[in-house]
């Protein structure tokens, strides 16, 4: 008979690493600035070596290096000045990052080419990235804060997108309702309500839908909840796909696989987003800045929510449902709030994106998209807003431009007639394997760094020490 596996702590906490003598000791004795200077110098050195190796050196690399040094090296948060009750130093990096993001349309095309990845993303890609950042922050509320695995997040995105598609297009030509819509003639049939109102309305409708989905299902245990949300995520797109003739009644709800297009764009005064205003306010830039504002609002709300009473209740439920219930946290209400909040952000993001690309198709709402957003949250670090933002930006960029660029680079260097060495003889279509790559990311991150690249320290502790997240009894009634 085989040797029995001894029962015991399944995942013992790791012993603290002994401090190494020599370099480690020397290193830990340096001041913060010296240490950061060292890491910064090494990072910049490696970056420049890469740039030179791939022969795309550019003066803009110097500017990027300077910005990096200015942001990273000084211990800004240790500055003694205060603005009101907030330490001034703590605002330096966020403000600088926001300024960099806001001015991005003016300098992105003058930046150097990153080796392998190619040029920096265009502004239209930036809009796409920001929309996905918004959705990832929303999903992070559900998965990261409350610990409920939602595999049907795309359903909320779909509800938001179709809300704006119904009320700001010519989908229902028998009605003629206009309300503050910019750039739409008053005799155009259909509902035309200002997209600005619709963004809020879509969020609220989606939140209500989240509550309706959540009320019967949130009682279920984690993995059952995941599969039920997956079910909703499959049912709603199918309704969208078959909704051009609902049950043979002839009522065209969603225009079927052709989708609803065109959708009105939001407007600002007399400025129409689709055409832009002038060479400064082009439509790409207008959408980019609007999306940026939405992301900032979303991130701020998410950050404040995390530290609120509700947010602490979410985290308590995530860590130990039974203990949280015993401490008087109302499980159902708290979970439903998490669902509604996540759904709200997803709905706003979906509505904005549908309006920005002026169309919505049922093909946009595959299960893959749910996993795509989940992958962003997990890669960045569940529960950490900065991590989620970076993870979402990176993956959305890969989806839009990055994989194609990387594929092109790989094929020119190692593909047929490759400039370095020919390894494969037919062109490899890298973007085709996008979801396989995301699958590998999910797997590798969960196996080796389950807390994500930029973790919240609390979530990291849970993953390494384990939590009692399997309730002994159903305590939800």
């Amino acid at each position, binding site marked *: *008979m*085989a*040797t*029995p*596996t001894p*029962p015991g*702590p*399944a*995942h013992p906490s790791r012993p603290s690493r002994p401090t190494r003598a020599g370099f480690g000791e020397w290193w830990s004795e340096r001041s913060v600035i010296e240490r950061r200077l060292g890491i910064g110098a090494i990072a910049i050195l490696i970056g420049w070596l890469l740039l030179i190796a791939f022969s795309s050196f550019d003066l803009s690399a110097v500017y990027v290096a300077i910005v990096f040094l200015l942001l990273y090296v000084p211990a800004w948060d240790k500055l003694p000045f205060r603005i009101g009750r907030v330490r001034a130093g703590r605002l330096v990096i966020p403000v600088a990052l926001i300024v960099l993001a806001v001015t991005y349309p003016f300098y992105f095309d003058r930046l150097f080419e990153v080796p392998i990845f190619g040029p920096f993303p265009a502004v239209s890609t930036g809009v796409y990235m920001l929309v996905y950042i918004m959705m990832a922050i929303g999903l992070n509320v559900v*998965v990261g804060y409350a*610990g409920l*695995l939602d*595999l049907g997040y795309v359903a909320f995105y779909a509800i938001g997108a179709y809300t704006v598609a119904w009320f700001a297009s010519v989908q229902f030509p028998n009605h003629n309702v206009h309300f503050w819509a910019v750039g739409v003639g008053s005799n155009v049939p259909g509902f035309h309500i200002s997209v600005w109102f619709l963004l809020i309305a879509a969020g609220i409708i989606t939140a209500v839908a989240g509550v309706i989905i959540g009320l*019967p*299902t949130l*009682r*279920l*245990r*984690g*993995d*059952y909840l*995941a*599969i*039920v949300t*997956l*079910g*909703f995520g*499959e*049912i709603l797109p*199918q*309704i969208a*796909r*078959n909704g051009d003739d609902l049950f043979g009644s002839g009522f065209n709800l969603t225009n079927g696989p052709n989708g609803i297009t065109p959708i009105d764009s939001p407007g600002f005064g007399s400025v129409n987003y689709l055409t832009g205003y002038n060479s400064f306010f082009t439509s790409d830039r207008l959408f980019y800045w609007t999306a940026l504002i939405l992301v900032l609002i979303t991130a701020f709300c998410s950050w404040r929510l995390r530290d609120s009473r509700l947010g602490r209740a979410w985290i308590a439920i995530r860590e130990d449902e039974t203990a949280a219930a015993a401490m008087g946290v109302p499980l159902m209400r708290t979970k439903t709030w998490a669902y509604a909040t996540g759904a709200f952000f997803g709905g706003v993001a979906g509505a904005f994106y549908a309006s920005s690309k002026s169309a919505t198709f049922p093909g946009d709402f595959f*299960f893959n998209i749910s*996993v795509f957003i*989940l992958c962003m949250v997990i890669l960045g670090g569940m529960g950490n807003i900065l991590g989620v933002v970076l993870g979402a930006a990176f993956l959305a960029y890969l989806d839009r431009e990055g994989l194609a660029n990387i594929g092109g680079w790989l094929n020119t260097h190692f593909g047929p007639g490759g400039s370095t060495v020919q390894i494969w003889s037919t062109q490899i279509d890298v973007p*085709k*394997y996008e*979801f*396989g*790559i*995301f*699958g*590998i990311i*999910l*797997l590798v991150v*969960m*196996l080796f760094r*389950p807390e994500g690249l930029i973790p919240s320290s609390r979530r990291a502790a*849970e*993953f390494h020490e*384990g*939590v009692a*997240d*399997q*309730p*002994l*009894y*159903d305590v*939800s009634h």
Partner: protein
Amino acid sequence: MATEARRQPLIGTRRYRPDVMPIAGGLLVLALLVWLGINLVKTPYDFLEITLIGVTVGAIYALVALGYTLVYGILELINFAHGDVFMLGAMMAATLTVQVFSLHDNEAAGKWIPIVLLCLPIGMLFCGVLNATVERIAYRPLRGAPRLAPLITAIGMSFILQNVGLAWKGANYVPVPNILPRGDVFNVGEADYQWNKLIVLIVTIPVLIGLIFLVQETRQGKAMRATAQDSDAAAMMGINVNRTISFTFLIAGALAGAAGLLYALYVTNVRYDQGFQLGLIAFTSAVLGGIGNLPGAVLGALLIGLIQAFNEGLNWHAPGSDWTQSIVFTVLILILVFRPEGLLGERTPEGG
């Protein structure tokens, strides 16, 4: 209000409230039966033929659903990658029959029977080893981690396997020739029953009996049941838990391999993303029957197969194949919400 409530005696004051849910569920089932009955009266031969199709498809689902239920029973994990293991099994079957043994349409019985009988164990072994490897890579390192962690790696693994299929066979349907004979076994009026449907059952039933024998009678099956009940206690009794879990995945994969072969031969086309969809349907079957319960998985699969066939085949007010996925998921959601223990499962303290 509050004082009024306090004045009343404490025991036996609860007003009788009829429970709405069983009534609503009963009405739903009644409406379903009426719909089936009308269809039966209107087109009896179609009805019979569609029922036979449903049983055939249900038998294939049963093989996949058993894989879900075995793994869930022992690890409490939804193995999302299982459907994709099945898909790779079907692709393996397509490769073996077409490229290795170069079978064609309407092959002579003396040729295809031995080849299919040879392909069956090869496919089962391939999928079994694949599934056990998936467990080794993606689930074993995460024992004791929060429950969400292996679920997420399962999704990752599912996508990886899907892309393996994509890289192997491309994005289009892989055609498989009509190897199985399509002649009628019998016909009742206008309803026909072809050989290919019967062969699916002829292969499925011994596999199911073998599985029941394995789980109920052998030493290894006893170890599986013990580990499913309480893995810590099983370890204390000298059972090698990790090996038992690997063995379970091997068996589950082998069932998926058999299903893949049958699917490739019966449906005659395979595509890289079919595994995930069929896997979800099979998982629904497992939940419908009561997850962790082997006869339940077979029953659930037959029911889901019938639901799908009736939905797609019947003439009178059937929603049609556009809605199959939605109907299956609606069944899943209703079952999970109202009877999480499934049709044959028992209620556990965890509440399902």
